[in-house]
């Protein structure tokens, strides 16, 4: 008899796996326990082993392909066995799910009996209720195939994981579907963990709908595809994104702070401004920070990126958003291609943009599509602060004020002009080490502006 090779739950939280490599090819003889493929889960790359003997007759999901847990990804059978029924692949997986669900439902009906008051008639009732439930689900499938398909992998995954299907009242199922929530993300408070109306309502309030958020994030579409690279999400990237969103909100921020010696930047600014005096241009510290940030981003494109919901978009060009306080709020006009522009150019452009921003004369394309943003509150005497990311951007730099502070250099007390910068990172896109490396580069440029020439 043919053995179906299913995508197995190789980690406790895995919902989908990616075939990294098939270690057996179609036609190879395999025995029970042989490693068939390497599968990348949300946690690690794992080995998927054969659960039967025979010939690996058919591979249904190619290398690089993804499959939800429970889906049939290959067929092992005798050499001459008819496996035509598996050629469709997906259909067969569905049959398996239906069986699992039926069995689970029966188990449900039986366990429900224990809770009921008078056994005789309630047993009948439980069975009656159960049968139409499946009918109703079939009806749903006909009416709204997509919504149902979303749920299916979970239904299949659950019996594999812990032998139980997700229990939810019909109303709760309907409400969850309307809210775009997955039942697996909701904690049930009813008998036997049944998800009921109040649980869905609580989940909605708690912002479990956050997963929907990426779809609503406006996506900036640059002019040319050469300007960016879309990086498909690895299973680990997906797991990080999903977990963090549940933890901290739609954009899972974390913060990195560095203390920068601005002594040389102060000197450099004085000389530059002396140089530019005849042209009537004056460079601010913020302009220097913008220039340095653009340079550092060019070196660390992983921080010059957008979260795209199902991918991360890394930009080759740096479009810097500059937060400008206006009368009743703030706006971030954009210095486009900041990495290509000189200090004087940036200084003039920012001045011009900020002036029009205060008069509310900016055109939409002048404040949309930044790849990274900078917010500076140093002029207010703010020592350090954290800025809120403007999605889909993955990072923002919060710049504090400069002040002379005692620091210890090589065991000696010194007085330096110091400034604290704090980067907010979207953890779905940027990890701690990546953000830190970017800040190291930025700090190096600010502490030795000559780097700009190298």
């Amino acid at each position, binding site marked *: 008899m043919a053995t179906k090779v299913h995508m197995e739950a190789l980690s406790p939280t895995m919902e989908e796996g990616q075939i990294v490599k098939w270690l057996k090819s179609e036609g190879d003889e395999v025995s029970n326990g042989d490693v068939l493929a390497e599968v990348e889960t949300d946690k690690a790359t794992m080995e998927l082993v054969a659960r039967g003997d025979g010939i690996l007759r058919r591979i249904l999901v190619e290398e690089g392909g993804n499959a939800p847990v429970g889906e049939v990804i290959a067929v092992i059978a005798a050499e001459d066995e008819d496996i035509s029924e598996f050629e469709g692949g997906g259909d067969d997986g569905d049959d398996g799910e239906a069986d699992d669900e039926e069995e689970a439902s029966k188990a449900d009906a039986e366990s429900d009996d224990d809770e009921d008051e008078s056994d*005789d*008639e309630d047993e009948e009732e439980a069975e009656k209720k159960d049968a139409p439930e499946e009918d*109703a689900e079939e009806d749903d499938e006909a009416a709204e195939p997509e919504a149902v398909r979303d749920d299916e992998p979970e239904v299949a995954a659950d019996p594999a994981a812990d032998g139980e299907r997700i229990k939810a009242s*019909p109303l709760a199922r309907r409400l969850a579907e309307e809210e775009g929530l997955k039942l697996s993300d909701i904690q049930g408070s*009813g008998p036997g963990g049944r998800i009921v109306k109040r649980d869905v309502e609580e989940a909605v309030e708690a912002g479990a709908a956050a997963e929907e958020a990426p779809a609503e994030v406006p996506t900036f579409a640059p002019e040319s595809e050469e300007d960016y690279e879309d990086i498909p999400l690895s299973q680990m990237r997906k797991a990080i994104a999903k977990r963090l969103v549940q933890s901290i909100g739609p954009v899972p921020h974390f913060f990195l702070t560095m203390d920068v010696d601005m002594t040389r930047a102060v000197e450099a600014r004085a000389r530059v401004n002396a140089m530019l005096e005849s042209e009537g241009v004056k460079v601010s510290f913020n302009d220097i920070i913008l220039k340095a940030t653009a340079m550092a981003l060019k070196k660390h494109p992983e921080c010059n990126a957008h979260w795209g919901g199902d991918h991360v978009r890394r930009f080759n060009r740096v479009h810097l958003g500059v937060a400008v306080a206006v009368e009743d709020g703030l706006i971030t006009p954009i210095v486009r291609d900041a990495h290509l522009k000189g200090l004087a150019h940036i200084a003039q452009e920012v001045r011009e943009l900020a002036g029009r921003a205060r008069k509310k004369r900016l055109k939409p394309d002048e404040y949309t599509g930044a790849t990274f943003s900078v917010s500076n509150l140093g002029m207010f005497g703010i020592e350090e602060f954290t800025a809120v990311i403007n999605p889909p951007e993955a990072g923002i730099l919060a710049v504090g004020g400069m002040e002379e502070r005692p620091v210890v250099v090589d065991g000696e007390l010194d007085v330096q002009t110091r400034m604290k910068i704090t980067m907010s990172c979207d953890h779905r896109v940027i990890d701690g080490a990546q953000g830190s490396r970017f800040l190291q580069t930025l700090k190096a440029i600010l502490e030795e502006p000559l780097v700009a020439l190298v």
Partner: protein
Amino acid sequence: MPEITYREALNQALAEELERDDSVFLMGEEVAEYDGAYKVSKGLLERFGDRRVVDTPISELGFAGLGVGAAMTGLRPVIEFMTFNFSILALDQVINSAAKMYYMTGGQISCPMVFRGPSGAALQLSAQHSQAAETWYVHSPGIKLVTPGTPADAKGLLKASIRDNDPVAFMEGELLYNVKGEVPDPEDGDFVIPLGKAEVKREGSDVSIITHGKMVHLALQAAGKLEKDGVSAEVVDLRTLRPLDVEAILKSVHKTNRAVYLEEGWPYVGIGSQIVALIQDEAFDYLDAPVVRVTQADVPMPYAKNLEKLAKPDVNRVVAACDRVLYRD
């Protein structure tokens, strides 16, 4: 509006219909000389004479059959069973004759008649005299079933039942006869309530207690108790069990997402079974919990007072059922 008893309301309805239509007559054990075993027909013999108010021997099958024959030939008999427990003797005439006649004669002969009397338990009348008879009657197509719980409903629905062209079983209750309630003054015109219409006896938003007959009062008590606990219970009185007001049931379930069926009869294939089936069929996606039934215990009614109390539905059991569908238990 004048406040009268359920008994007086029935008496008014009978008198008004006897007065209005001389094809109407009342027949049963002790309905005439004795004014009725429960005094429902008080004064009617004196007022309408012995051709309109007729005493019978103790022979349920016989006088039920007389009634069917009279109805077939154009009269509108009201057959009183001293209680519906005794009507079991007459069921052949009810189910095989009255309920089938219109169908089996291809619509040529109808049976416009009412079988009425108390149904269900009173106090310590033991197993043979405490039975809720709804299921035996409602099971068969061809006969309507009306179960008023209040004086107003008793009057309005009895008048509609007498005027209906199909046989109607009209179930009252010994414990209801002394219940008082507001009933429109006869001076203010003909008061008739159409069959097949449920009534929301109390509005609520958290759980629907759906019920019929004398259990309406228990449901209202339970709703009052739940209110003190912050739960808003809606009480839906079906009033007519056939034809059933499906729309009213679904409307309430759509609103509250949780339902309890309360009836005084047994659970096995009871009225509640039908209502539960209907709700799961028609309102599945609106349910937040399985529908729970509160019924008499599945035993012959005990005579012993303490056991009888345990066998009957009570307020605490209704509240507990509501708590269960609200996941508060």
